[in-house]
Each structure stands twice: as C-alpha cells, then as structure tokens.
C-alpha cells in the first residue's frame, strides 16, 4: 500500500511517551526527557493547587472540632454546676430544718412520738422529701419515732452511720437500704439535752425526690446524670452504668470543691464528655459525687455529620482536580513534544539540504576545474590517434590504438560525470504544463521493452481511474521516473516483478509508487542514497548521482520522495506530487 505523506498522518495522543529514540534527531530537540517534564508538571500543579485546599480543610476541621469541644465543655459544665447547686440546696435545706428543730424545741418534745409525728407532718408539708423522723440517744436506742415503718425500739448502736453521726454535728449518709429494705438517705444532727447527754435527731430522705431533681437536668437522651459515692458505687440509677448500688469501676475523679469537666482523649465519636462535682454542703461533706455524661456524637451530631460530608466533597474535588491536572499536563507536554519534534525535523531537513547544497556547490566547482584539463587530454589523445590515423605509419599498431581508445573512453566517462554534476546543481526555470502520468509511464516503459522480454520481468501498472492530469514540469518528471525505473530494472534479477501504482490522494496530491523485487538497500545505506556520488553499483554501472538528482528534482516539483526497502525482498520508492504545482518567483 502507498503510505500517506506526513501531512495526512494523525498525530497520536501520548506520542511523547512512546516515541522511538533517534540520536541524530534528538540532538535537534530543545528538551530531551519528556517523561520527567510530564511528571514534574503534574507534581508541581498538584502540589500548588491541592496544598492550599488540603491545608484549609485541615485547619477548618480543627477549628470546628475545637469549637464543638468548647461548646460541649460549656454545656457539660453548666448542667453539672446547676445540678450540683440543686443537690446541695436540697440537702442543706433539710439539714438546716433538722438543726432548727433541735435548737428550737426542748428535748422532751423530741422524745414524744405524737409531737415528733406533728413535726414530721410539718416537715413534709414545708419541705417535702422526708420519710420518717426519729430521736436516738447516745446508746443507739431509738427513743422516739414518727414514720410509716414500725421501727420503734430499734437499736442502731452497731450501725456505721450511727457511730459516724456521733462524731460530728451534722451527718449525711450515702444511699442504703438498712432495716427497711428501701433505698434511703439518712441525715442526722447531733445535740445535747438538758441533762448534758448527747442525742441525735435523724431523718430519712426519700431517694425518689433526689432522682427527680437530677432527672430535671437531663435535657436530652445523650445526657446521663447520676450520683455515685466515693468508692464508685452508683447512688442513683444510671442509663449508661446500670441500676442503683452497681459498682461502676470508674476512675474516681480527683477531689475538688468546684465543678470540673474531663475531655476524653479519644477522638472517637462515641466518646463521652464527663462533668463531675463533689457535693459539699456548708455544714458537712456528703459522700456524693455528681456525674454528668454527655455523648459527643449525640450532642454535636449535626456538626460532625456536616464535617464528614465536607470531607467527602474535598476528597472528590481532589480526585477530580488530579484527573484534570493529569489530562492538562499530558495534553500540554504532548503539544510541546510535537512542536519540538516538528522543529527538530525541520532543522534536520535544513541541515540535510544545506549539506546537499554544499556538496553540490563543491561538486560543481570541481567539475568546472576538471573540464578544462579533461578537454586538453581529450584533444591530445585525439591528436595522437589522428596522427596514426592520417599518417598511416603505425595504423596497424593495435595496442597503441586500443590504449588511445581507452583514454578517450575514460575522458568521455569523466565528461558524463561532470555534466551530470552540473545538472545536479543547475536548476533551470520550471515550465509547467499539463501532464498525463499514465502516458509518461507507458512511454518510459517502452524504452525497456526489450530488456523486459529478455530478462522475463513481469511489469504491472495500476493507475487509479480518478487520477487527474497534473500540472507540473514534464521534463523533470520524466527524468525522475526514468531514473527510478532505470534503477529498478538494474536491481531486478531475471523473472522479477516491477509494480507501478499511481494513486490520487485528495484533495491535492498524487502518489507514484515504484516497487521492485530487486536486491533491496541495506538499512545503513538508506539514509545516504540521496547523497551525490553515493553508489553501491559495480564499476561502470553508475555515477552515484542518479538518486541525488532525482531527490533534487522532486523537491523542485514541490513533492516528496520516500523509500522503503528490505534487503533481498525489494524496494519501494514513493513520489508524492502536488496535482497543481505553484509557480515560484525565483527559479
């Protein structure tokens, strides 16, 4: 098949990655390593565009996290502080009420069950939360009792709360069940009766009231509020830690008189923020620690979800940007490569044509200088021959005559070379006329008719039917075809093939392909075949000027010539010519 000229070839995408290295062409390239330019370009673009985005995202994420944490801490602190104050107030109020009763009423009034019952009634009415009330003497004997349980006459001497309440003026117990088997808190005040004996007024408080107060601070399902004692045992039921009296195994927070908040170190969403406060009344330390657990994800769920969505948007943006950066870099580097390649090819062609021009000028100079002595040799040898010929003295000396003929023949060959050389350099005005390529080829082939028959060469011509008559220089085209066809005939051995194909390459070119089954051209010689004097033909067969002249003529006709050859298989010369040749101002 006929190869399309380069102008019709599609320039491939990613050409710079898969180009074949040609040392000579590479020396004309501005850049050498396109792969590293490509990678550097992608890296620089990616770093400069993605770094601000990633940094901004990271900072934003940190800021949101900090804001969320600060807000959580504030919330936890507020809830803990408020709940603590309520708890403290609840216990203090009731303790003060007992203190008031002890100070206000005489001892005999406190050991009278009926009177004690009245007082309990008033306490329930005025403060609420009281279950029963009793007076206990220093031996632990319950002297008087008012309340729903039948506990009269009980002795509490062995009870730990009793011994501890004897030790200080005021006492608040942890939650316990005691004799009645119901969770309750004991508050007790110590006093001295008229006889100077110590006695204790004790009241039990309903834990339900306590729980109600705590529950009123539980604003949402993600918050857990409970009390525990100093050993970590639950004093109220907890949503996260279980029923009352369950040991929590929590780390007991360090003692502090103020409200504190512990931030978990874990960043996980299910982590809790813990607010705690030791409940201390003015009169006495209580065994209670108020604990507030707030689930991070629950409270700040909206914020955290938004953060996640934002992160996804950033990931996808980065991915899209990377794809765009890669595509843009590839496109640009490929463009750069193609431009550079075109430049390098042009420079290489210029170098070649300059070399050819130099060689041509040099050859013409040599031809000129040689012509004169050659003419002299020709005349001198001719004169010698004439002498023998006209004087008839040594006409029969065949050896002399043979040598003289050899000299004259050599001179004639030299003359052919110099005139061809001059023809190579000279470029006369081009005369454009309409030429039928088919007729031209037929005419040239007719010269070789005898050789074709003699060598048994199979000649085929295939002219595309739509091939137009072209406007070009008839003489030059004839010489081009003559040279190429002569070369082909010289290369073809007996019974070989010569195929001549003419194709129309719309819109404005035709291609003439001359394919022979001759000896072929070795790869190392293909680059040199257009150089003047380059010939591999045997002595007397060629001057080495034919193809260089052909090359110059094709260029003169604004065409292109390409050669493909494999040794032992054959050679294809493809001449591409414009259908309509443009006139040149300078010949």
């Amino acid at each position, binding site marked *: 098949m006929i190869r399309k000229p380069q102008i019709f070839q599609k320039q491939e995408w990613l050409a710079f990655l898969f180009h074949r290295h040609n040392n000579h062409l590479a020396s004309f390239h501005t850049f050498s390593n396109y792969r590293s330019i490509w990678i550097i370009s992608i890296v620089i673009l990616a770093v400069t565009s993605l770094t601000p985005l990633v940094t901004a995202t990271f900072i934003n994420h940190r800021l949101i996290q900090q804001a969320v944490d600060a807000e959580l801490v504030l919330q936890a602190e507020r809830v803990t502080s408020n709940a603590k104050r309520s708890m403290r107030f609840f216990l203090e109020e009731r303790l003060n009420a007992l203190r008031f009763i002890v100070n206000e009423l005489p001892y005999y009034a406190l050991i009278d069950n009926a009177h004690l019952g009245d007082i309990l009634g008033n306490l329930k009415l005025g403060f609420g939360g009281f279950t029963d009330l009793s007076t206990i003497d220093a031996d632990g004997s319950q002297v008087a009792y008012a309340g729903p349980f039948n506990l009269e006459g009980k002795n509490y001497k062995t009870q730990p709360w009793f011994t501890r309440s004897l030790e200080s003026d005021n006492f608040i117990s942890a939650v316990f069940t005691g004799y009645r088997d119901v969770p309750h808190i004991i508050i007790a005040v110590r006093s001295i009766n008229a006889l100077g004996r110590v006695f204790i007024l004790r009241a039990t408080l309903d834990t339900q009231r306590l729980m109600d107060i705590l529950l009123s601070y539980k604003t949402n399902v993600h918050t857990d509020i409970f009390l525990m004692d100093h050993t970590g045992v639950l004093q109220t039921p907890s949503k996260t830690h279980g029923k009352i009296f369950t040991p929590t195994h929590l780390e007991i927070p360090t003692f502090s008189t103020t409200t504190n908040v512990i931030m978990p170190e874990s960043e996980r969403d299910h982590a809790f923020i813990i607010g705690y406060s030791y409940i201390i009344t003015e009169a006495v330390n209580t065994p209670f620690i108020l604990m507030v657990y707030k689930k991070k994800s629950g409270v700040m769920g909206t914020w955290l979800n938004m953060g996640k969505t934002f992160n996804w948007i950033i990931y996808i943006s980065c991915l899209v940007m990377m794809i765009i950066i890669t595509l843009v870099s590839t496109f640009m580097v490929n463009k750069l490569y193609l431009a550079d390649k075109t430049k390098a090819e042009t420079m290489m062609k210029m170098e070649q044509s300059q070399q050819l021009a130099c060689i041509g000028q040099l050859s013409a100079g040599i031809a000129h200088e*040689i*012509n*004169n002595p050659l*003419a002299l040799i020709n*005349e001198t040898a001719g004169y010698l021959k*004439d002498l023998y010929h006209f004087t008839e003295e040594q006409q029969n000396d065949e050896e002399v005559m043979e040598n003289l003929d050899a000299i004259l023949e050599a001179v004639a060959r030299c*003359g052919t070379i110099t005139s061809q050389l001059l023809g190579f350099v*000279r470029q006369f005005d081009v005369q454009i006329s309409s030429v039928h390529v088919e007729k031209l080829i037929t005419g040239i082939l007719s010269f070789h008719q005898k050789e074709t028959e003699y060598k048994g060469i199979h000649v085929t011509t295939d002219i595309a039917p739509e091939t137009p008559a072209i406007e070009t220089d008839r003489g030059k085209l004839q010489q081009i075809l003559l040279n190429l066809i002569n070369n082909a005939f010289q290369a073809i051995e007996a019974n070989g093939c010569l195929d001549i194909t003419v194709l129309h390459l719309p819109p404005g070119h035709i291609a003439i392909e001359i394919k022979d089954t001759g000896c072929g051209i070795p790869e190392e010689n293909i680059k040199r075949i257009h150089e003047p004097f380059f010939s591999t033909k045997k002595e007397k067969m060629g001057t080495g000027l034919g193809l260089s002249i052909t090359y110059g003529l094709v260029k003169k006709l604004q065409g292109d010539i390409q050669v493909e050859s494999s040794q032992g298989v054959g050679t294809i010369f493809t001449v591409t010519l414009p259908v309509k040749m443009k006139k040149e101002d300078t010949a």
Partner: protein
Amino acid sequence: MKHIDILIIDDEIKFADMLSRRLSLRGITCQACYDGQSGLQWLTKNPGAAALILLDLKLPDIYGTQVLARVKKIDPGIPVFIITGHGTREDEKACIDLGAAEFIHKPVSIEKITALLNHARGEVQ
C-alpha cells in the same frame, strides 16, 4: 581577406592549438586566437571570413559574453558556439539570449565539431 572554416577563441593555448591541428588534419581551416581582443580584431579585419566561431567564456581580457555581444554586432549572421569548462546557469541563459547557437560543455568530441560545421555550412548554403 582569408576565408577559413572555424575561428577558435580560447585562452587555453594548448587546447586551441591541438584542436586546430586536428581539424586541419580533417581538411578544416582554423584560426586560433588566445584572447577576446585578438579574436575581435581578426574578425574586424576579415569580416564574413569564418563559417563559425567556437568561443570560450573565461578569457583573460574580456569575458566571453561580452565578446559574443561584440561578435554579433560585427557579424550578426555568424553561428557562435560556446565551448566552456565553466559556465553557470546565468551564463548559459545570457549566451542564448545574446544569440549563441549552443552552449557546450568541455570536453567535446571532434565528431561533434565537424557535425556542427557541416550543419552551419548547410545553413549558409
């Protein structure tokens, strides 16, 4: 006035002599001049005496194209053949424009010259 067949104007003395000797052997009369000036003088003295002129371009005194121009003034009808070892494309064009019959590169065979003369004689006759 002496009638001859060929006037040779060439500064290569040996070439001109050898050529005229060879032509003489063939019965062709020649006159050799070794520069442009002497060639033109001979022609002025003997107008219409030569049947054709062989003219070299690279002469020591006057360049061949100028010699050709003057020859054509003296005798417009005489056929002038340029025989040169040099000769650029411009020279060839100039010579053809000035009326040279043909532009021939050296070396040239004796047969070609005799053929030229026969042709010129044929035209004259």
